[in-house]
């Protein structure tokens, strides 16, 4: 991170947004810092996009203050340093890729010589080199996402705000975009990533806020944030009350998995306790067929976290 890494990139204080009588965002406060990649994670309808739209000046808050790079969000000049890609980017599709980037570059105030240089650079960066003269109307959804990101970074912004970056991208595209964001972050660009995909925020973000029903439930580093339980899948030849009783001396919790009485899900506190589990089973005289850590999807962890916090 750069020297000014403790300077705020985004400051939100007591933010509230009400559409008619529907509360989209309810008393949100958070700070992200320069050079930090910050993930905003939540299910659809959680209020993520509303916050992003407020950050980009598209929506006015009902209450609260929002500052971007130290300035109020309605400060026009500060937007020269902010790039934004909406969730479902819709562009003037009659434009060619070059003309599209030239128009948006000019809106950022870039001069002709700089523009020429930047158009080539960003097209190459988002994987669209050689597509300069192709009309956007012939672009696939993934290519539109890429050109959308290109317009967001053409001004070399200090802060990039991205709303669901990888929607519409194939796995290769998703990997490329994540790699590109990592590069931007390495260059010192602050990133505010709105996503419902845990893989995105885990791969890119330093910190994550979980939002649900318009409220922030938790903020922290991804590794700390999700309460990943250590669960072992254990299969033995037979199970008795005595064996379960012995296992309970080590295990935090034991559950029967599936319909097989000999298949157990054993929650432990530390990894090395797996060996204790094996010893207990051997000492009891049972045959151990399986002892493996249980694979839990990130989505499952996310929803467990939301349920636990809610």
């Amino acid at each position, binding site marked *: 991170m750069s020297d000014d890494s403790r300077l705020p990139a985004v400051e939100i204080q007591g933010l509230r947004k009400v*559409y008619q009588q529907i509360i989209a965002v309810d008393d949100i406060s958070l700070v992200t810092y320069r050079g930090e990649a910050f993930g905003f994670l939540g299910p659809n309808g959680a209020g993520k996009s509303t916050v992003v*739209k407020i950050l*980009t*000046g*598209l*929506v*006015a808050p009902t209450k609260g203050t929002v500052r971007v790079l130290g300035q109020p969000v309605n400060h*026009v*000049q*500060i*937007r*020269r340093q*902010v790039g*934004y*890609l*909406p969730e*479902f*980017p*819709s*562009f*003037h599709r*009659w434009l060619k890729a070059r003309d599209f980037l030239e*128009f*948006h570059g*000019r*809106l*950022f*105030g870039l001069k002709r010589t700089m523009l020429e240089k930047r158009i080539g650079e960003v097209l190459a960066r988002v994987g669209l080199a050689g597509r300069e003269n192709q009309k956007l109307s012939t672009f696939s959804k993934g290519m539109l996402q890429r050109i*959308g990101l290109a*317009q*967001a970074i053409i001004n070399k912004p200090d802060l990039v705000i991205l709303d669901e970056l990888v929607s519409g991208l194939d796995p290769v595209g998703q990997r490329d975009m994540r790699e590109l964001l990592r590069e931007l972050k390495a260059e010192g660009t602050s990133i505010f990533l709105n996503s419902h995909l845990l893989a995105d925020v885990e791969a890119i973000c330093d910190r994550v806020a979980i939002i649900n029903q318009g409220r922030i439930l938790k903020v922290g580093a991804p590794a700390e944030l999700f309460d990943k339980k250590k669960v072992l899948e254990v299969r033995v030849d037979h199970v008795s009350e005595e064996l379960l009783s012995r296992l309970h001396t080590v295990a935090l919790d034991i559950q029967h998995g599936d319909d097989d009485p000999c298949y157990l899900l054993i929650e432990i506190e530390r990894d090395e306790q797996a060996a204790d589990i094996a010893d207990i089973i051997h000492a009891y005289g049972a045959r151990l067929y399986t002892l493996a850590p249980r694979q839990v999807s990130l989505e499952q962890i996310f929803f467990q976290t939301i349920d636990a916090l809610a």
Partner: protein
Amino acid sequence: MGLLLITRFTIQEAFHRWLLLAMLLLNILLLAVFALMLNAAYSNQLAHAPSQSNPQLFLLEFDLIISILSVWAAYLLSGAMTIVLSINMTSGEIEGGTFSVIVSKPLHRAEIIFGKWLGFALILCVYTAMLFFTFLGLIYWRTGYFPENALAALGMLELSTLVLLALTTLGSTLFPTLVNGAIVIMLFIGAPLASFVQLISTTPGATAQNISTIVNLVIPTDALWHGASYYLIPSFLYSILQQRGVLSDLNTPFTSIQPLSPALFTWAILYCIVLPIIGVIRFQRRDL
């Protein structure tokens, strides 16, 4: 700077839309048909011109009628083009989602609306002038007649175009495209009704006059057309008809024997300024 960028972009976009091209092609077709019909009608008129009485006055009547009708056609075409081209000026961008990446750029929302307004105003004013001069040019080519106050008439038509544009600009920030279109078309078509009512009522009273005034305040396009028609009639003709006591014969739903009143002229200019400003204020407060 941002304003001019948006203006340039608006003009570029208009030329990339098939709509403008289709309208222009149809106009060329229409003008070609008009030229053929004018040629045939004028030849016929020449053949039937009375030899003993004043043939020049006879031909002037033809020149005058054809000039007024063709400029009226230019007024209608210009109005149609204004509505079709600018009806989704703001609402279309909002509905299409294309504003998200533009409004978030370092420019004021007012620059976006005024920039688009300026772009459309330039296109439409040039279009109106081209139509106007093409119609009158064809008439001049065939008959040798050209209204002495043509520029004043054109000024009225241009103002009428800008009035309509001001209305679509405001409506486009307030309503969805379809609703805006319905409102503007109804007003544009409905505006001459006040003139018709005044004509058919033998003794137009205060109520008819008040209704006409209100209609002209809500949508001054018809009043501006009447103002334009006044300048299409040669000034000497007014004198002759006044001497003969038949000047009121020129007071029809399509023509006027009086220029646009200064008050209505001022109102039309204010209309062109105030409505887009209200549109900007509305757009500045609108969530996208």
